[in-house]
């Protein structure tokens, strides 16, 4: 009971003493100008409108506060009696209208630039999942998931937080610089939104829709962003990392990726041992399943049931495979069939049947999963 109260006590103590955990003091107050032409244009527009608002504010509040100071009853002033003037009303309707037109002109041209639909050099399909991103390089035949890589220990304050806390992933999206990239943004389950401030791209990922966004990144670097549309429990835990590389570095990365894909196909076809599957399965489980079912398989009942000793994980293997591949419609359990490779699927199913005291001692081979998927 007391342990539960500790955060509250810390919070109350903190708010009075203004103590601070060892955090990076940034005090950043403004939008990033970003690195692309569009993001700079957006930033300039933001600043122009901000200063126009400041100027209007200074005039309006200036007159108001001057009245408040000079026209107080305690100073013995007599109130004036004027209360209407059509001329004045027309003036202060017209002036804002003219200012607005002045704002609309640069805004329109920035918007047209952001909608540059001319031919792109690389097409990347981005799919939002609860709660991770999938990137598909359409022409290159490479695709992978990008998961949060911040460990739970940091999130639950058991160890110190590192610099890129919540803004780090296992597999960043890698793109070459100075190439026109077209993002095709969609989602598998609910609406997400793919946002990287440094390139001023924010596009909703909507199931059943494919949205387009374009960018050209002029300098190498690592650009971080987050999902911007509430998508459920772990909405705050699905960051985006874009790594822009020179063309040579990108080619090296792409070749390694394509090789890894070939190796994965090899792994799919070989016969695995129980130990091999368990070892691989533990990793797959940690990345994909712990958010809901917990590292020890205890789940977060009732929404997220326990796997430890569960009817499915200790029942016939066909039923278990079906739930993992196809999900459970109407629950949070999504279909992992399209999300994971046959090796990963076989490994994680085998792991769940033989971990945390579950001891079915049976397994499924990746090639069987692949055949099952091919048959469907």
């Amino acid at each position, binding site marked *: 009971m007391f342990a539960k109260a500790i955060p509250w006590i810390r919070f109350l103590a903190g708010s009075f003493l203004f103590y601070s*955990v060892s955090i990076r003091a940034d005090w950043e107050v403004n939008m990033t100008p970003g690195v692309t032409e569009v993001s700079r244009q957006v930033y300039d527009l933001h600043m122009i409108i901000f200063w126009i608002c400041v100027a209007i504010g200074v005039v309006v509040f200036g007159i108001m506060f001057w009245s408040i100071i000079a026209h107080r009853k305690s100073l013995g002033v007599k109130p004036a009696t004027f209360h209407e003037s059509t001329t004045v009303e027309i003036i202060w309707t017209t002036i804002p209208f003219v200012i607005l037109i002045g704002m609309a002109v640069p805004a329109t041209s920035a918007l047209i630039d952001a909608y540059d639909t001319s031919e792109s050099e690389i097409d990347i399909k981005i799919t939002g999942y609860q709660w991770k991103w999938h990137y598909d390089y359409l022409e290159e035949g490479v695709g992978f998931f990008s998961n949060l890589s911040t460990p739970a220990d940091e999130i639950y304050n058991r160890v110190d937080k590192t610099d890129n806390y919540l803004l780090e992933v296992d597999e960043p999206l890698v793109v070459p610089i100075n190439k026109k990239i077209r993002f095709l943004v969609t989602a598998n389950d609910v609406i997400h*939104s793919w946002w990287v401030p440094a390139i001023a791209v924010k596009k909703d990922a909507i199931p059943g829709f494919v949205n387009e966004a374009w960018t050209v990144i002029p300098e190498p670097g690592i650009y971080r962003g987050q999902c911007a549309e509430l998508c459920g429990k772990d909405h*705050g835990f699905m960051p985006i990392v874009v790594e822009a590389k020179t063309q040579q570095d990108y080619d090296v990365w792409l070749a390694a990726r394509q090789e890894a894909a070939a190796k994965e196909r090899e792994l799919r076809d070989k016969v695995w041992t129980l130990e091999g599957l368990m070892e691989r399965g533990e990793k797959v489980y940690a990345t994909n399943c712990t958010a809901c079912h917990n590292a020890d398989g205890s789940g977060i009942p009732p929404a997220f049931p326990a796997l430890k000793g569960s009817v499915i994980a200790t029942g016939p293997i066909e039923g278990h495979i079906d739930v993992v591949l196809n999900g459970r419609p109407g629950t949070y359990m999504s279909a992992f069939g399209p999300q994971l490779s046959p090796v990963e699927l076989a490994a994680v199913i085998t792991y769940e049947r033989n971990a945390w005291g579950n001891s079915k001692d049976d397994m499924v081979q990746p090639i069987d999963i692949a055949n099952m998927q091919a048959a469907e």
Partner: protein
Amino acid sequence: MSAVLESHDHSHDHRGPAKGWRRWVYTTNHKDIGTLYLWFSFAMFLTGGCMALVIRAELFEPGLQIVEPEFFNQMTTMHGLIMVFGAVMPAFVGLANWLIPMMIGAPDMALPRMNNLSFWILPFAFALLLSTLFMEEGAPNFGWTFYAPLSTTYAPSTVTYFIFGVHIMGVSSIMGAINIIATILNLRTPQMTMMKMPLFVWTWLITAYLLIAVMPVLAGVVTMMLMDIHFGTSFFSAAGGGDPVLFQHVFWFFGHPEVYIMILPAFGIVSQIIPTFSRKKLFGYTSMVYATSSIAFLSFIVWAHHMFTTGMPLAGELFFMYATMLIAVPTGVKVFNWVATMFRGAMTFETPMLFAVSFVVLFTIGGFSGLMLAIAPVDFQYHDTYFVVAHFHYVLVPGAIFGIFAGVYYWLPKWCGKMYDERLGKLHFWLSFVGMNLTFFPMHFVGLAGMPRRIPDYALQFADFNQIASVGAFIFGITQLLFLFIVIKTIRNGKKASAEVWDNPEGLEWTIPSPAPYHTFSTPPDVK
């Protein structure tokens, strides 16, 4: 006609309120119903406020400390729903009930029995909504905007309670709006032409039309959800040929006028208060009426500015950007008129005036950030960040809530015949003012620096401003208990208030004694 009215009224004149609980349950008296609405809304304000404090406590520092993300999402959702539908809207209806008949010289609302019903279904609606917190699957967790399919296919089963709760709230609002329109159009004292009505009456008349226009749309959208969830339709499910973006169009067609429903009556309140304490007539009455009407009209054609990132075609983005920017014109006219009213007046700063003046300043700041958000290409960076959270809290807290506080302090002496404690009232104002700005101003910064909204945990660079915001939120929250204390103290042992209360205020409500008798204006009064 008037003879008939008079004989009818005489039979009621000597009847006071019933005794005990019957007075409140059976009442058809506009003053009693106004009181019920106001207390109900205050209870909801504290409930929704506690939820906001849970949110701010969790966000005090990075990491998960107090609540899990699942419960955090329930808190953000319920906070929004309760504040919008439970605190702000009923408070305005309460003020309308108390004040509109007294301001237009009517004996009561036009439809007193419906008035009773429209209040008494509200506690059931909120009991339905709040009961979900104690259910196994928890309360709705999909945000107050409840975007499909998160709120349909992927929602907890308690979403059905939410849907019926919203239906009942909608019915209540529509009945309230019909009643207000019927009262204003039919029961004005004969000499009060439309263009002589107090601005509070005008803004409420326009608000009531907005309510009648958009609450059925809200009912429609939740009904479509109900069908999708329980009856196999696919309005919003892409898998069945439906369209998740359709949800957003329908929702925001309700949602945008809704934000004006929450601010127009506050415009009215401020337009009553500033002239009184400036000792000068309201500047530009006619243009205020036209500006309010223009805002109401424009509110119907700007809804998709909430959807700039959904992938609208360029032409759509441009249309909604231009239309949204246009709202700045009539809103500006209103602010200029208030400033011109203060200009060369003889001002004093009692609590209602303090709230009204800070309303003008802080609402204008919220208006500036609104203008920035209207610029579609820049909105790509602002959208769904804390900059948006800062924006709408700047228009709703110092806008709607400060407007309500200003109104309560201004008319409380009329309602209960006693004066509130001016010193404590000012303390309430200053603590609220500091707390509110401390909470919401830093949100502009973290939003611009890239912090998305509706997240239970955040990257380290946002930590400092979030700590300040949390401290401010607790100051603001606890201060509201002081408000409760002030009101109770006034009712119990405030000093006796005169009929006029203030220095020569304008309006029929000040011609009757304080406290206002149970029945007023049985015969239509004269208006100069």
